[in-house]
């Protein structure tokens, strides 16, 4: 229902319930405010936004809803006096050191002071200078002398980030913002998202980057290169360097929010140890710098030799989910056309290949079905094997907001993760037992008739067979396997099935397991039988790990498919590619990453090109990986830092970071967004795509997009060869903050927020897959009595290559690896909190500090894989998903031994 009113004589039509302030904004009329922020609930405190309404006393426009026929005036002499008085009041409690203030020029108090004609302060100010600024945090400075008590920082911390770290304390002149239990910010449990500083209208909470730089020279809109949420960022550049980063207010994936990594952890790009020149390994095993000419010639010569002497099958490439779509496309085109093999893979192999596989089989496309926005519209979230508040913080905050607004939450995780505290039910299952619990959830729905018969009969197939096979999997059986009480499984199934709109989200805790694909099938079955597809607030969605892991696969950096998942085995697809590429493509699928290592060890694979992927640290059973790398004749590693993998290379080529190149990323919900060159590449390194083209040229081939390759032209070719990307072009992505969600099939297609709309699955009908129970490869035994499961923590990203080269490490929580162990186990082993322990598996052993705490259950320990000095992945099993080869990172059996204490300890 809409309401028409007049504001300053202009007729405005808005939705009923809109505030006068929002209505005025919509009409382009500015009303001065200090405490209002469009993304926060009205607060009504500064009283600057008061307006005159005919027939009533003046009202605060921010929290007064519009009424039909209302006559509003926003500019009158009375209001000017009133607002000037408010400014005078606020200024009486604020220092007047504007010239030296870091907010100078961007201060909202200055703006309203100018706007209202504030000239004179007639009132006594309180004593100042009693409160020292809190400079404990590596990225934020709190100077409460400057606070004007608008509480925007507190409100954004509560309403947007859901962290509840800040609070207003004291009254009157003594009012200030308090962090935690009156702790320094760095110790207050702050997630360092920086939203508070972004909201602060003055300089009471501020980014160090802003304090250090003043105004930026320019602002470049780009997309974050950490996780797959795909936050739009505004990079503020001063002196051709990144000065500070803010989330873009119109960013579609993040809505003006960011996390500690995207917002603050950018210093790695200027780290001193960044690779600046190509390195060639000499006969003595040490690296020496060579020129780019030498390096490119050398690479081309060795690759030619391998191809010509051993055949195309002797080469394989690992492309990077950290690089752009265009670079991945170039790499797979190079591998297929120049090297003549389909052996290209990317790290989605080791993370979400089971998701892509199962979603593709059951529904017709290997990507998530719905969008981030759908979380705002769902009634129930089933979250399994994911820890979004740490690994995908901006999305995690969104889930929290949805739950605080009333959505129900079911968490299935071996650990009591932060969201488990917000959940209706936390099913704390043993690592590796996902299939059992998910099967039982399905069984309960089938048994109790909690499924949507109409949906099942109209839009799905294979139900009857499936149903018969699942019938015996009772919650009691699942309890035996997983340790989750059968009653909790029943309750969870009922909550999920009875929700009007229910959404399933999963992460690597599901897929990085020997039964990864089976669990994904099970989750899809659950959504299929309850009709939770094709409408807002529903769906089955993997939360992808890396910034462009979706895109790397989408554009064909996979051994069995071209871009848009067109199988290389499909003659028509091969023919389309032959027509445009001008060469025949082999119809046999190439090697997956684990197969590549096997082939190398067996001597079949001679040469590899690995781009921005630290397999020697991030892949499981790293001893095996390193042996494989060392058995190669020739290994190129393209990297920004000398890492574990690069150490084994024959040639190391310095690549560029996302801040130094143009391209696109695809985030977790199929959102294609632009990455822009923010700063020029420093002398010494080339963007990764340029390197591929240069090598190709030297091998007598041209990838066809110019030298250096023009990313817009690369996108044109992707679009031509990929039906679901048919409408994607740089032109449409040019506006800052623009995005397209594939499928986007024509230039007129606005893109697809929700796939499989109205039960019309891309596959035709949704297909049920029975999921027989299959356990993990390893379970605890006498010798190795603990489950070890692994994951991420908030402040670091993957193997820490980037984050560890930023001041993030100054935060205590981010400084070192810790083995989380339950107090009961610690007591039994005689391990005290903070003591060092040895963790041993059948593959290796590491030493690490123990943190005794209750988020893990007895019998399970947890570690991250962020710290090269603690090579967690040495311990992991090399078991893998039977369908996709995705390794079982999440389940290993280990033994814990206390390290000997010194006498007297």
């Amino acid at each position, binding site marked *: 229902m809409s309401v028409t009113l007049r504001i300053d004589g202009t007729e405005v039509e808005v939705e009923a319930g809109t505030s006068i302030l929002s209505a005025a904004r919509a009409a382009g009329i500015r009303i001065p405010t*200090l405490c209002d922020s469009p993304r926060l609930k*009205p*607060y*009504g*405190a*500064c*009283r*600057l936004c*008061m307006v005159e309404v005919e027939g009533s*006393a*003046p009202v*605060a426009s*921010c*929290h*007064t*809803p519009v009424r039909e026929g209302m006559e509003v005036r926003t500019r009158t002499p009375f209001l000017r006096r*009133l607002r000037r*008085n*408010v400014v005078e*009041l*606020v200024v*009486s*409690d604020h220092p007047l050191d504007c010239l030296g203030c870091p907010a100078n020029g961007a201060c909202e108090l200055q703006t309203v002071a100018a706007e209202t004609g504030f000239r*004179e*302060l*007639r*009132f*006594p*100010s*309180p004593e100042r200078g009693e409160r020292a600024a809190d400079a404990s945090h590596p990225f934020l400075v709190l100077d409460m002398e400057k606070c004007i*008590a608008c*509480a925007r920082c507190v409100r954004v911390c509560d309403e947007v980030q859901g962290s509840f770290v800040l*609070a*207003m304390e*004291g*009254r*009157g*002149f003594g*009012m200030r913002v308090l962090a935690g239990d009156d702790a320094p910010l760095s110790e207050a449990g702050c997630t360092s998202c920086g939203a508070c500083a972004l909201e602060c209208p003055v300089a009471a909470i501020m980014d160090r980057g802003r304090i250090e730089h003043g105004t930026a020279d320019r602002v470049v809109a780009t997309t974050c290169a950490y996780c797959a949420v795909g936050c739009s960022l505004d990079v503020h550049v001063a002196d051709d360097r990144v000065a500070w980063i803010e989330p873009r207010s119109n960013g579609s994936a993040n809505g003006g929010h960011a996390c500690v990594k995207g917002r603050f952890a950018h210093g790695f790009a200027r780290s001193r140890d960044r690779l600046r020149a190509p390195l060639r390994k000499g006969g003595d095993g040490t690296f020496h710098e060579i020129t780019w000419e030498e390096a490119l010639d050398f690479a081309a010569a060795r690759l030619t030799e391998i191809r010509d002497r051993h055949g195309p099958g002797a080469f394989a490439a690992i492309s990077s989910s950290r690089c752009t779509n265009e670079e991945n496309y170039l790499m797979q085109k190079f591998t297929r056309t120049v090297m003549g093999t389909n052996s290209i893979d990317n790290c989605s192999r080791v993370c979400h290949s089971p998701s892509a596989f199962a979603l593709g089989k059951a529904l017709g496309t290997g990507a998530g079905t719905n969008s981030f926005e759908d979380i705002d519209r769902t009634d129930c979230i089933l979250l399994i094997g994911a820890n979004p508040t740490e690994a995908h913080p901006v999305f995690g905050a969104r889930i929290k907001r949805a739950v605080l607004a009333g959505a129900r939450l079911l968490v299935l995780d071996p650990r009591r993760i932060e969201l488990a505290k917000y959940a209706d039910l936390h099913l704390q299952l043993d690592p590796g037992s996902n299939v059992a619990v998910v099967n039982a959830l399905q069984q309960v729905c089938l048994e109790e008739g909690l499924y949507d018969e109409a949906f099942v009969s109209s839009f799905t197939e294979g139900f009857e067979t499936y149903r018969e096979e699942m019938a015996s999997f009772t919650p009691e059986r699942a309890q035996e396997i997983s340790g989750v009480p059968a009653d909790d499984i029943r309750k969870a199934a009922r909550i999920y099935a009875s929700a009007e709109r229910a959404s399933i989200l999963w992460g690597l805790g599901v897929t990085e397991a020997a039964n990864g694909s089976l669990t994904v099938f099970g989750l899809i079955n659950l959504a299929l039988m309850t009709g939770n597809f094709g409408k807002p607030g529903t769906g089955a969605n993997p939360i992808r790990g890396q910034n462009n892991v979706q895109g790397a696969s989408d554009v064909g950096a996979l051994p069995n498919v071209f871009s848009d998942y067109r199988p290389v085995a499909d003659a028509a697809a091969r023919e389309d590619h032959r027509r445009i590429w001008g060469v025949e493509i082999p119809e046999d699928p190439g090697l997956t990453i684990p197969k590549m290592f096997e082939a190398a060890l067996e001597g079949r694979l001679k040469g590899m090109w690995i781009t921005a992927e630290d397999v020697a640290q991030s892949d499981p059973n790293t001893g095996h990986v390193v042996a494989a790398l060392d058995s190669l004749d020739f290994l190129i590693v393209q990297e920004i830092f000398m890492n574990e993998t690069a150490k084994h290379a024959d040639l190391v080529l310095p690549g560029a970071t996302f801040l130094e190149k143009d391209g696109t990323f695809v985030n977790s919900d199929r959102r294609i967004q632009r990455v822009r060159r923010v700063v020029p590449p420093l002398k010494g390194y080339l963007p990764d795509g340029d390197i591929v083209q240069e090598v190709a040229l030297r091998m007598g081939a041209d990838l066809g997009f110019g030298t250096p390759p023009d990313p817009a032209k690369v996108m044109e070719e992707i679009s031509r060869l990929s039906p679901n990307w048919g409408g994607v072009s740089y032109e449409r992505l040019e506006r800052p903050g623009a995005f397209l969600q594939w499928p986007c099939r024509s230039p007129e297609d606005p893109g697809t927020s929700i796939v499989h709309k109205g039960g019309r699955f891309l596959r035709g009908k949704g297909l049920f897959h029975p999921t027989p129970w299959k356990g993990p490869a390893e379970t605890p035994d006498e010798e190795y009595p603990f489950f070890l499961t692994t994951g991420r923590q908030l402040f670091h990203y993957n193997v820490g290559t980037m984050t560890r080269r930023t001041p993030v490490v100054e935060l205590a929580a981010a400084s070192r690896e810790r083995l989380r162990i339950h107090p009961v186990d610690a007591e039994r082993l005689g391990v005290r909190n903070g003591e060092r322990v040895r963790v041993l598996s059948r593959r290796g052993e590491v030493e690490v500090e123990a943190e005794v705490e209750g988020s893990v259950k007895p019998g399970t320990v947890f570690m991250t894989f962020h710290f090269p000095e603690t090579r967690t992945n040495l311990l992991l099993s090399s078991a893998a998903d039977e369908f996709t080869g995705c390794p079982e990172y999440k389940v290993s059996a280990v033994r814990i031994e206390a390290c000997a204490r010194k006498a007297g300890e």
Partner: protein
Amino acid sequence: MSGATDPAYAWPLRTPHPGHETYLFDRIGIEGMADLETARAHGAYETFERVLEEMEPSEVTAAVKDSGLRGRGGAGFPCGLKWTFMPPLDDPRPRFLAVNADESEPGTCKDRVLIRRHPHLLLEGILCASYAMGITAAHIFIRGEYVEEARVLQRAIDEAYAAGWIGADIRGKGFGVDIHLTRGAGAYICGEETALMEATEGKRGHPRPKPPFPAAVGLWGKPTTVNNVETLCNVPAILAKGVAWYRRIGTQASPGNVLAGISGHVARPGVYEVPLGITMRRLIEDEAFGGGVRNGKGLKAFIPGGSSSGFLPPSELDVPLTHDDLKEKGTMLGTASVIVLDEDASIVRATRIIADFYHDESCGQCSQCREGTGWLARILARIERGAGRPEDLDILLEACANMKGKTICVLSDAAAWPVELALRHFRGEFEEAIDRARTVVGVAAGSGEGSAS
């Protein structure tokens, strides 16, 4: 309970007032009224039981509406009318009654007596109101400093639960309600109805912008009615003795008895149950009540209804104690808590003390209140100290004008009124203080604090 020997209650609590019935304090003198057994022996819950058996919820609301009962928390809003703002009884959402026991207005301690001496009367009032409005749960928010009262009240609640007067399906009549007690932590602002709800929810006591009003979005976002302790204690009597009986007490527009507190420089300070409409003169001077200014001194000023109602001069002593008569005098009945100042008192000092209180208690949300209360306090302090400037009185009045009607709640207004009234009726005293400063110091600008501009 041995209230009679409790020094805090050495004040006379009940004074026979010839020709008038008492129904709030009529049983508080009885030893042990806080115990359920004694209270039951003296009729506790009998009215509620009869209501459950004989009346429809709508009839209860109608009776309260017809009685003309006005809220006793300060604003004097018609109680029954407020109840009708709640959504219809078939609305499936939970709904709450928030009971305001955060009695913090300086000079006011009437609810304290009711809670301490006769908690079951409050609980019975809550039960009747809950029945009328279909309340799911009632949340009593009690002032943090009322430690003993909270203990007594919690015990009464526990006893009433145990005896089946509170909880599910009371007396097998199909109606149930829970009653919870939450203690404050020492902030005056939590007596403001929306701040009270925030505090009950466990948050910092910040008033909420209105609209939405509590009947639409109240405790935990659900429909809520907020009533004061004394208001609810009126309800059982209205239901027991009838609307006609009730309306015979007090005045046409302000029916019923009120608990008037008298403090300050009087001979007999205390809390008295009196009919609305009694004159200030009688309340202060009558031997049955205040007994006149103590030590035979003359009267300089009186505050009629709690600190925010400001000072009136002796010439206004004949004003009747009703909502409308006091409003006409530019003040209010408020909590009917009279504070008396004798001829030796300094209005400048008294005003500054009140200003200090509001400055200290401003929650800090709204600019005008957070900063404005500080300005009033600081300027008044410098006048009192002998550092006042001639322009200060005009600045005070302008500051007051800017603080009224422009903020989320009325604390800002409450801070401005006493200053305005003091300047209206006693401006000479302020001018004298400023003149004296100028004579002594000889310069206009005060020394020390206050040279910020």
